[in-house]
């Protein structure tokens, strides 16, 4: 069995009196493609925010690649291999598509100490974390000077970054749009650019928050195929939030259903679909009807 890349145990978060999430469990391994569904306001996005360090959980632990990340900042958690997209698209609007991706492509080669070496020092013991921080700071200091002096090494890295970013844009079918400002892209392309940007951080687990929202049926179908491809191509574990139940059912191997912050069901699509609690939650939301989907016990 492979090691868990992203794990949540008994995670809860309360906003004042509101229990936005409680007893949340999750386990993602390489190659997993799991779904997170639930009616509006069920706490799906909140779950992503807790996992990525935007919110500190009230209870429970989150582990990324085996390391407890409670209290780490989002950028530190991202560096451990967890990347996400946003439900309400948050691109760098006035930057070009290329620059959006390049921001996320932090250079892998550093002037003095490799990222691997700093990570190793940081992991070895908590006493070394000071040394790791010092190495990172020195790296950064030298790196600014290299940028100011346009050293050959700096120029090489900039070119390498651009090549890497272009490759990712190509995967997402955005290469022809690379010089376009993000805000001028159509909706569907903005969503795909968000995925390209998240991939650029070199994640091992990718969290997608309603990646198909606002797309037409055809775009949605294409996107689902693409998401499957990404999983094998980049050796990812993927967790998708999706409103369209039909889509999630089609591609995910395991689905977790949230309602009022509680996990009301978990299992393969078939089991989830026929679960009475799920049906009730969705019916209560008159959601199924709105989606034109088959009602309780209907054939698949």
């Amino acid at each position, binding site marked *: 069995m492979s090691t868990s890349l992203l794990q949540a145990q008994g995670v809860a978060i309360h906003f004042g009196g509101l229990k936005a999430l409680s007893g949340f469990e999750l386990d993602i391994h390489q190659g997993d493609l799991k779904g997170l569904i639930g009616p509006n306001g069920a706490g799906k996005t909140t779950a992503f925010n807790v996992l*990525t360090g*935007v919110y500190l959980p009230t209870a429970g632990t989150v582990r990324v690649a085996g390391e407890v990340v409670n209290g780490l*900042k*989002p*950028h530190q958690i*991202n*560096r451990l291999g967890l*990347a*996400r997209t*946003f439900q309400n698209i*948050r*691109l*760098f*609007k*006035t*930057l*070009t598509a*290329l*620059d959006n991706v*390049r*921001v*996320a492509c*932090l*250079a892998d080669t550093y002037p003095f100490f490799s990222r691997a070496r700093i990570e190793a020092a940081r992991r070895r013991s908590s006493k070394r974390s000071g040394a790791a921080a010092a190495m990172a700071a020195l790296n*950064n200091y030298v*790196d*600014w000077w290299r*940028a*100011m*002096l*346009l*050293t*050959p090494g*700096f*120029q090489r*890295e*900039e070119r390498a*970054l*651009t090549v890497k970013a272009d490759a990712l844009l190509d995967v997402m079918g955005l290469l022809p749009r*690379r*010089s376009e400002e993000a805000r001028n892209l159509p909706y569907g392309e903005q969503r795909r650019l968000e995925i390209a*940007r*998240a991939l*650029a*951080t070199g994640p091992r687990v990718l969290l997608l928050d309603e990646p198909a929202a606002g797309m037409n049926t055809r775009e949605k179908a294409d996107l689902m195929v693409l998401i499957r491809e990404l999983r094998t191509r980049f050796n990812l574990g993927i967790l998708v939030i999706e409103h369209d139940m039909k889509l999630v059912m089609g591609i995910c191997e395991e689905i977790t259903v949230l309602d009022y912050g509680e996990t009301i069901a978990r299992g393969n699509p078939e089991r989830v679909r026929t679960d009475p609690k799920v049906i009730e939650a969705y019916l209560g939301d008159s959601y199924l009807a709105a989606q034109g989907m088959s009602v309780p016990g209907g054939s698949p």
Partner: protein
Amino acid sequence: MASLPAPLRGVFPVLLALLLLGALQVVVGQLPFFVYLSSVVGVNVILAVSLNIVNGMTGQFSIGHAGFMAVGAYVGGKLALEMKDLAISGIPHGVSDQLQLLASLAVGGAAAGVAGFLVGLPSLRLRGDYLAIVTLGFGEMIRVIVSNLEVFGRALGLSGIPQTSSFMMIWMCVFVVVLVARRIQDSAHGRSLLAIREDEVAAEAMGVDTTAYKVRAFVISSFFAGVAGALFAHFVPIINPGSFTFVKSIEVVTMVVAGGLGSISGSIVAAVVLTLLPEVLRSLFLQVGGLEGGAALAQKVDQIRMPVYGILLVILMLSRPQGVFGSRELWDAFPRWWGRGRRAEE
């Protein structure tokens, strides 16, 4: 310039600027009024371009730039006073002067950079408006501190600082700050700053250490404000707390906003225009109004400058909130001509 061998690309523009400014120095050295005016303009350009790194590129709102300028002016000026009687032997007198000036610029800038770090570290963790309040407070605090310190001459200020500032040194500093700003913009670091401006939450989620980047931008910006202050101390007969009030900070903010937040060339143009405008008006009034009325009118120019800036800001915010240049650059219009423009590189 794209055809230059890679190792030379970094330093070539600096050497070129040194040569050009050296030649110009010989020509304009004999025109004291021109040198004075261009010094005032140059200092303001440095202030505007450096503030633009924080307010324009990183999207934070600092309104205490005069405070950092004061740190540079006082520390650099004090150092110059201490070194006054020294001269480096074996080289011409003028060169020794310029080297001493360079030392006081470096020390003044470094002191302001340290101040920037101390102010920025706690306040840049906070969001937007808090930074404005903290920097505003810092600027005033510096003023109060120097007006109470004997070493800095209290309210009287420092006088007798050697007037060694030169056309060449000032414009070399202008050149360096512009070059630094451009190279930041065209590097991975600059892109991270722009990302913070566009969406801090997303930048953080993409692995950008937003607090650290904001502090770095702030330190670089304060460093150059300090350099500008130290330069200033070397061409005005006296520096006192009155030169570094809140009004000065707002003047610089006006330049950056008017030029277009994030546009380096916008900051340059706005700094030049907004510095020369009152000077031109003043000499114009002196010309037309005769000695008596003219002098009175000229004095009025100074009094109405702030209200005019205020009105200008309001008009700009209403009609063109992105500033005259937006975030575009003058040199993007002719990318081949001025090095490699941002767009041309891609």
